[in-house]
């Protein structure tokens, strides 16, 4: 490994991590503003022009809050849990390409941190790890609400992992590769959502459940569990959970766009490769808007119904989707 390559990786990782953190800050603002519009409110618009500094203000507030650890909590795990939640969220998008290779200073760069040949598998693995953070947070808080939240999270994520994994298989079959770069290239002419409408829907539903977004936000159900697994967290530790949730929102939108909406593909990409990241960003924003829209509209589904939905509807549908896809591919492709 040369020093240059190492530097390249370091810079790219830094870009991803910074991008994700800044993205997180502005997704919160985006969500609050969009949600406010849905709900005939105005939303935060005082800090900076049009509320542009609101995330900074929020972060400052959270940093200066007292950091409480309950007396009877398991201290080590209590401190570790937010970290365990945030790190997978940050590294999840490492394999997602942002654009076609570009030439800079006479050298060609690929626009992704790394392009491993089992990228899809990597994503599934990392999302699974992030469950631990939430479960441990719920368990170590020594609070009944938090425990219930943590248990719900575990059950929910395990049942949705399967459907999520199966929804990945459609694009993988179509592209013939697990590398996300290959999947994006395979969508040059037609986006996979055209071939895989069901797969795309299953992907969106199961990822929303996976990241505990409304209407599947059971583990943090404000109304019944007050705040679920993070009820005992305050200050920066709470902010980390919050951050993980929003970064995961961006991540699943990025992955969704990559798998089903052609990733960075778009018109005039061959002439202007720098358009790639912009296309990806646009698609992510559209998907994020969809997530906020869902939150503004739907009530929360009940815990047992959610499990039943995952196992009895989503899972068989995903299996069926794969079977049909595989069958059609054999019949058509030969």
């Amino acid at each position: 490994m040369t020093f240059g390559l190492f530097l390249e990786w370091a810079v790219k990782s830094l870009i991803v991590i910074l991008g994700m953190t800044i993205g997180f800050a502005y997704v919160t603002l985006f969500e609050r503003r969009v949600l406010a519009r849905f709900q005939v409110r105005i939303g935060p618009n005082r800090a900076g022009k049009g509320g542009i500094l609101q995330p900074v203000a929020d972060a400052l507030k959270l940093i200066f809050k007292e950091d409480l650890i309950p007396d009877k909590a398991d201290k080590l795990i209590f401190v570790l849990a937010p970290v365990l939640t945030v790190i997978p969220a940050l590294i999840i998008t490492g394999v997602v390409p942002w654009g076609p290779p570009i030439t800079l200073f006479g050298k060609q760069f690929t626009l992704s941190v790394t392009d491993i040949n089992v990228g899809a598998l990597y994503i599934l693995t990392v999302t699974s790890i992030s469950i631990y953070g939430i479960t441990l947070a719920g368990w170590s808080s020594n609070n009944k609400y938090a425990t219930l939240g943590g248990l719900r999270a575990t059950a929910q994520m395990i049942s949705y992992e399967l459907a999520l994994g199966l929804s990945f298989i459609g694009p993988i079959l179509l592209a013939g590769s697990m590398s996300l770069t290959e999947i994006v290239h395979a969508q040059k002419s037609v986006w996979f959502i055209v071939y895989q409408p069901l797969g795309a829907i299953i992907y969106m539903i199961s990822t929303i459940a996976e990241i505990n977004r409304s209407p599947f936000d059971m583990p943090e159900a404000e109304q019944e569990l007050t705040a679920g697994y993070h009820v005992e967290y305050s200050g920066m530790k709470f902010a980390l959970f919050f951050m993980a949730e929003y970064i995961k929102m961006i991540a699943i939108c990025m992955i969704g766009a990559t798998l089903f909406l052609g990733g960075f593909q778009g018109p005039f990409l061959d002439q202007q490769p720098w358009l790639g990241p912009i296309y990806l960003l646009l698609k992510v924003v559209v998907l994020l808007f969809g997530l906020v829209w869902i939150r503004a509209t739907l009530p929360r589904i009940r815990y047992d119904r959610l499990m039943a939905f995952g196992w009895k509807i989503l899972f068989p549908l995903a299996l069926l989707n794969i079977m049909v896809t595989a069958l059609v591919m054999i019949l058509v492709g030969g």
Partner: protein
Amino acid sequence: MREIQEFSLDDLRHLVSPRALTGETMVLNMGPQHPSTHGVLRLIVELDGEIVVNCIPDVGYLHTGIEKNMEGKTYQKAEVMTDRIDYMYTMGNNLVYCLAVEKLTGLKSPPRADAIRVILAELSRIQSHLLWIGTSALDLAAMSVFLYAMREREMIMDVFELVSGQRMMTTFIRPGGLWRDVPSEFEAAVREIVRVFPKRIAEYEALLTKNPLFLDRTRGIGKIDTMTCKAWDVTGPTLRATGLAHDVRKANPYCGFEQYDFDIPTQTTGDVYARYLVRVEEMRQSVRIVEQALNKLPYGSVRDNNRKYVPPPRSEIGMSMEALIHHFKLWTEGFSPPVGSVYATVESPRGEMGVFLESDGSPKPYRVHYRTPSVPLLQVLPILSKGHYVADLVGIIGSIDIVLGDTDR
């Protein structure tokens, strides 16, 4: 080492099942500070996993002593306290108290005052139902409905402010009529509500009534039948959702409710969804009543002319010695109704609200007792919630629409 006070299960031995004492089920303390107990209600919930085995409401965290306080005040001044009982139906609290005082003293409220009372009481019902639809949808995490409901509620609050200068604690309805006549802008403001509101109800319904997730959360949840309702003295939408069309406005009309044409919506299933449908339809019927009352709003005085009980208008005080004396006597000593006891009822958004007044002939009531609908509703909560999920418990509390100020007087 700091001492941590242990919560002992032995304290609850007579309340929870034996399984809780062995640790097989979990005893969860919900409230008094909890986002969805609608005020300061404490619930001791025994959970088997996520299923409610037992639910014990613990009231008294909002005890205000209003009834006792009223006994220390003259009849007129005591009325100010009534606003604070069911703080979602303030006009109705005033109304039922005034009806009781009128029964006791033989005062008669003029037709114009009656019509305005009907309009204001029905607007109060709508605003209470609006808050209910907002919060109970919010309990199921459908958050937008709450803000839409608040938008319409503001219009009604503006009308209250217009007539009385106060948004909630109005004390506008007085024994013998009203505090004063409504301003000229009143009619236009109410007409605007009547015009806009049916469309807005359709908006809420579009978000909820046929939403499969909402149906899933409400149908078959928190069931109760008519017999249980009767046994526990449950009234209002909860009773009507079981199929019994009992409404004080029809059964025992007051303020001329018999002149208006309206239906009593009923459902038969008695679950959360039935209560939802009943309340939504009630809002429509209330709009109908308001419209009719507005159309035939008579002209004339808004107060009884009996100066022994009703203070003279401000304009008379400067002109007439008697008026000044009456005013002075009424606001210092108060009036002394004849000895006796009366009971008057109105239909509150939660059910039958009654007030019992006992007079010993002095200017202060000897005993005031409010029969409030929230108490029986809270008493059936354990029956409603048994065997349901903890998430549905929150929905059930929302659906019976309790007001804690109403429970603890």
